[in-house]
């Protein structure tokens, strides 16, 4: 009763698709459509692993212990975690900063802390732009610059009141994730000497678009915060 692997693959796919109940789909879709969005995937597993490495670092480096005092709101391990990353990155054994910042941005967005989430997204972009500079080609540099610019624009777009629109935060989170993903792909492409210039261009375009949107958001924010600057003086 030999079947072809392709037929079997299709049948297997159909069985997997059928195994998703309508109720489950409805629940997920309802959840996705209900704002706020922006993150998922807890980092619990990672915290344990990081903890073990931190213990090793702590015993070897008193300075790190001081750095770990520098904890942000939230987890007790937060500061230690960041200090560990910085050292690991400094000695060139890790490229985790981007991923960690992104994860923080997700977590903060989930907690509803919009400005901190945007700041973390901006930091993720900053980190990914630094990581792109190694290969040294012009298209990479251009993309890296655009990403750095985008990172700055995000921070400018955080209103003084701290109340960013949830849609804007979601938008920035998605874009940041995309940019980080593309940057990783670009670096993979560089390793295999593939044609990376299209990828660099795509990355560059996306980063520029993100900058534009952040600039618009900033302009909207300042209209709201300084109504007297606008022509409409009738508002209180």
């Amino acid at each position, binding site marked *: 009763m*030999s079947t072809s*692997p*392709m037929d*079997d*693959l*299709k*049948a*297997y*796919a159909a*069985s*997997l*698709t*059928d*195994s*998703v*109940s309508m109720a*489950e*789909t*409805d629940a*997920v*879709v309802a*959840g*996705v*459509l209900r704002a706020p*969005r*922006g993150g*998922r*995937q807890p980092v619990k597993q990672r915290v344990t692993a990081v903890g073990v490495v931190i213990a090793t670092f702590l015993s070897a480096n008193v300075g790190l212990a001081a750095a770990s005092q520098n904890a942000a709101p939230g987890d007790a391990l937060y500061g230690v975690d960041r200090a560990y990353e910085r050292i690991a990155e400094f000695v060139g054994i890790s490229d985790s900063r981007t*991923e960690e910042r992104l994860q923080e941005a997700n977590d903060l967005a989930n907690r509803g802390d919009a400005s901190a989430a945007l700041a973390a997204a901006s930091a993720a972009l900053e980190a990914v732009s630094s990581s792109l500079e190694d290969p040294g080609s012009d298209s990479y540099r251009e993309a890296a610059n655009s990403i750095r610019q985008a990172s700055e624009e995000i921070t400018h777009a955080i209103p003084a009141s701290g109340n960013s629109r949830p849609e804007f935060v*979601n*938008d920035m*989170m*998605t*874009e940041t*994730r*995309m940019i980080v*993903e*593309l940057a*990783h*792909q670009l670096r993979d*492409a560089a390793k295999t000497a*593939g*044609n990376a210039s*299209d*990828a660099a261009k*795509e990355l560059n375009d996306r980063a520029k678009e993100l900058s534009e949107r952040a600039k618009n958001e900033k302009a909207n924010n300042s209209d709201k915060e300084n109504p007297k600057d606008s022509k409409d003086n009738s508002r209180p």
Partner: protein
Amino acid sequence: MQAIERARAGDSEALADILRSAHPRLVAYFAGSGPQRADAEDLAAHTLEAVVTSIHKLKNPLAFEGWFWQIARYSFRGWIRRTRRPARFEPSYAPGAGPEDAIHLSDEHTQIRTALEMLSPKDRSLLWLRDVEELSYEEIGGRVGSTVGTVRVAYHRARKRLEEAYGALEQDD
């Protein structure tokens, strides 16, 4: 196609319909490409979130399939990078099905699942998009990274590996 057009224009009912039809396929794609069922469900939800936040940027509704699966692949590659662990499989029976059905389904797909397990996540993803989702090479290549030729070669290699793994398992029986 009209639904995509309407969803792009902000019709939330049309968007919900698209997401509902995409969700089971996404779960299947992720579960079939490596992640455990729970991870596959997370990845599917994450992909749908990204679709919701960026559908207004989709310029051409005809390009929806390629665009959509590109997002799914970003999610998948992110997962591979985050976890950096070899993919494992779970039995894929319907939660509502009785135990006989579960055993039946599980038996029925053991060979293909085991063969898939012998491939890299990238190969599995490629085979899935081409053979299950029936995307074109252009759609799989997307705007980033690979040319049509590269995708075609990678696909044929992946397919050969699957056929070899599958054949070897058949001989073992």
